[in-house]
């Protein structure tokens, strides 16, 4: 039986993309699998009694070493801010290519804590900073220094000791350009170096908290229980800076979504599900109930989503227990079709992720196809003609070209780059100034303009000749031809409409990172958690791939 890939016009709607969850394809899970056999070392740990100083952690294999360089600084409580406009942080990090020399460390000491206003070199690969979750951090230090373990319930409310507020890579602030490292097999998957940085930062947070407690009370202090450590991740505050990424990298976006869609298609095409595979699916489904119940948020929007997800999961479990026969033919297909008919997107997409769990044989080859050499697809095929372009627009953008952009609500917002922080922002076109400096992120509107512009052009006119008079639409002509070969390259929604929920764009990207515990703080930024439940560096060799569904004591 052949199952069709899901229609991009449905999958690529923002409300659907905003319901995606982590899966076996997610980058932090792939990263751990790919690096589990690498040697790890704490090369330097020079912190004072308050935990301030420098440390270096490394991962090595054969002749390759990646080193996390950490700087922990004193900052006043009123200087601590997760906003991107902050200028001081509790800690600052960079991932250095190789083993840093003393000279490198001194250079980095001057620049890494400055973050965006510092300068890095081609020897550095990623850059980040993090702030303490103060009440959790202090509670842990207090408890450990008194010889006690911290209150688990308190820890689980937050889920981490530190949260990062940005992780930069790919040539920002002088960091190494992608072309310098793109041929390295071990980091060919997307965002591997960013994941490595965050994972090693997590290890540093445990060493630092233990160190401070020990310094505070050398005789009584105990180390943080390893099970507790495993169930603490790294938090992250993420805002609109992340949203344009998925518009600006169409082939990469396609490759992420396509991997997910091919996985689902192949799983639905399995004729007979093995007992063990279905058992694993059911086991993780049940574990998920407990795990999801630990997702805390004050956001009404997210509370509704979590509540709906839990309700739908119970409905699904009931169905599986009472009416579902997994021994029938193509039973995952049957289950998926039942989900589509009876559940909401949030749960459907959660189940899609869960269905992947038993199938390393399907997922692993796809993980290798999730990167993209974007330059290869940049040139416009100018020898093609208007007929080709019109067909692409009518086939791939059929919903988009129906949008009426003469209506105010469909034109409500515009994307711009903030002068203060050089970060993307969203503003109201009718209330805020600056729309004349709009970024080229209103793809739906510009595609519609392109469609109207070619309406009276001859089919035989070449794209090269069309562009001579229409270079103002060059950016969308390029995109249209990309979408011809990359069906999931384009968001099938209006990114400037009044109903836009920017966190849907963030959520999509974060789900591919492998983030959990989405906690929206508004419709424009949210907090998440990464690596919660993940093995520690010392456990990495015996990695259990189900770690992400663990909760403390489960």
């Amino acid at each position, binding site marked *: 039986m052949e199952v069709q890939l899901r229609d991009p016009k449905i999958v690529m709607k923002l409300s659907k993309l905003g319901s995606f969850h982590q899966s076996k394809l997610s980058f932090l899970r792939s990263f751990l699998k790919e690096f589990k056999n690498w040697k790890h070392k704490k090369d330097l740990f020079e912190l004072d009694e308050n935990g301030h100083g420098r440390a270096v952690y490394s991962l090595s294999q054969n002749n390759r070493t990646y080193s996390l360089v950490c700087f922990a600084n004193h900052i006043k409580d009123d200087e601590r801010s997760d906003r991107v406009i902050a200028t001081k942080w509790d800690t600052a990090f960079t991932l250095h290519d190789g083993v840093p020399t003393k000279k490198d460390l001194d250079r980095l000491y001057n620049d890494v804590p400055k973050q965006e206003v510092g300068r890095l*070199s081609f020897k550095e690969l990623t850059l980040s900073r993090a702030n303490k979750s103060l009440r959790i951090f202090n509670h842990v230090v207090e408890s450990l220094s008194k010889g006690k373990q911290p209150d688990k319930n308190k820890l689980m409310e937050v889920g981490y000791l530190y949260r990062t507020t940005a992780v930069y890579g790919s040539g*920002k*602030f002088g960091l*190494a350009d992608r072309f310098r490292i793109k041929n390295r097999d071990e980091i060919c998957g997307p965002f591997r170096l960013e994941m490595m940085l965050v994972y090693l930062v997590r290890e540093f947070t445990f060493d630092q908290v233990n160190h401070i407690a020990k310094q505070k009370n050398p005789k009584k202090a105990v180390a943080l229980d390893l099970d507790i450590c495993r169930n603490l991740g790294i938090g992250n505050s993420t805002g609109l800076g992340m949203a344009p990424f998925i518009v600006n990298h169409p082939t990469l976006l396609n490759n992420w979504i396509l991997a997910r869609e091919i996985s689902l298609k192949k799983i639905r095409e399995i004729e007979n599900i093995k007992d063990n595979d279905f058992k694993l699916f059911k086991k993780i489904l049940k574990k998920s109930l407990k795990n999801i119940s630990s997702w805390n948020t004050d956001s009404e929007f997210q509370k509704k989503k979590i509540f709906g997800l839990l309700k739908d999961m119970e409905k699904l479990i009931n169905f599986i227990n009472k009416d579902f026969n997994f021994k029938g033919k193509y039973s995952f297909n049957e289950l998926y079709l039942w989900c589509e008919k009876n559940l909401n997107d949030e749960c459907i997409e959660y189940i899609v992720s869960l269905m992947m769990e038993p199938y390393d044989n399907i997922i692993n080859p796809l993980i290798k196809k999730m990167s993209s050499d974007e330059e290869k697809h940049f040139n416009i095929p100018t020898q093609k003609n208007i007929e080709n372009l019109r067909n692409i627009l009518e086939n791939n953008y059929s919903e988009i070209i129906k949008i009426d952009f003469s209506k105010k609500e469909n034109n409500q917002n515009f994307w711009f780059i903030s002068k203060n922080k050089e970060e993307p922002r969203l503003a109201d076109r009718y209330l805020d100034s600056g729309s004349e400096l709009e970024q080229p992120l209103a793809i739906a509107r510009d595609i519609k303009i392109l469609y109207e512009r070619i309406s009276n052009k001859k089919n035989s006119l070449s794209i*090269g000749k069309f562009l001579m008079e229409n270079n103002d639409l060059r950016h969308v002509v390029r995109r249209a031809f990309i979408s011809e070969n990359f069906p999931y390259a384009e968001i099938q929604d209006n990114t400037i409409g009044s109903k836009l929920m920017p966190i849907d764009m963030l959520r999509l990207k974060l789900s591919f990172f492998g983030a959990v515990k989405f906690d929206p703080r508004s419709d424009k930024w949210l907090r998440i958690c990464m690596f919660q439940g993940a093995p520690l560096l010392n456990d990495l060799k015996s990695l259990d791939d189900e770690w992400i569904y663990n909760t403390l004591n489960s």
Partner: protein
Amino acid sequence: MISLSEIDNTVKRASKAVGFSWGIAEEVGKSISLLEMFGLPGLKNLNQYFKAYKNKKFQNVSLISKTNSSKISYCPIISGINFLDQVFTLNEMIEIDFENVAFPILFIPFLSKSSEIVGKKIFLKIDERKYLLNFNHSIFSNHLDRDVLEKAKNVKIVFIENENSFSESEWNELYRLSKETFVDESEELKQTAAGAGLTDND
């Protein structure tokens, strides 16, 4: 050191700021980072061009012919983009001449990309400076100064047919040498090689 990714982004934004469309600005960003990667003074030339762009008029060629001349200097960006867009037609012309091109270094990356697209090396002569553009993989030149070149009187572009750069006898000499690594096969081994024992009409 400023990374190529920073150059790409900043140039893209600067190009939009001086008045180019976003689609063209994207091309300029990639082109300048390409020039810098090849070690040619892209950023320097672009900076000077944008200063001149604010006060002077430049010619925007649209349909490129075999010979192109104008009293007003050609804009290297629009000319470059038009060249790229019309490259399949221009390839048929083999040789194309421009007179009076402003900041011609900025024209180079578009020709370099064109070389990749049509799969032919391109020979470029900017007055006395010579460049060989190799499928967008490398640029070979007799001129390595990193100066700003404000204008070129004559720019000649030649599409080079895919032909050997060596003679047949030079090739044969080398091939004979390579054969010295081969081993004579015994009769028995010949009998068991792929296809042996079958007629080819089965």
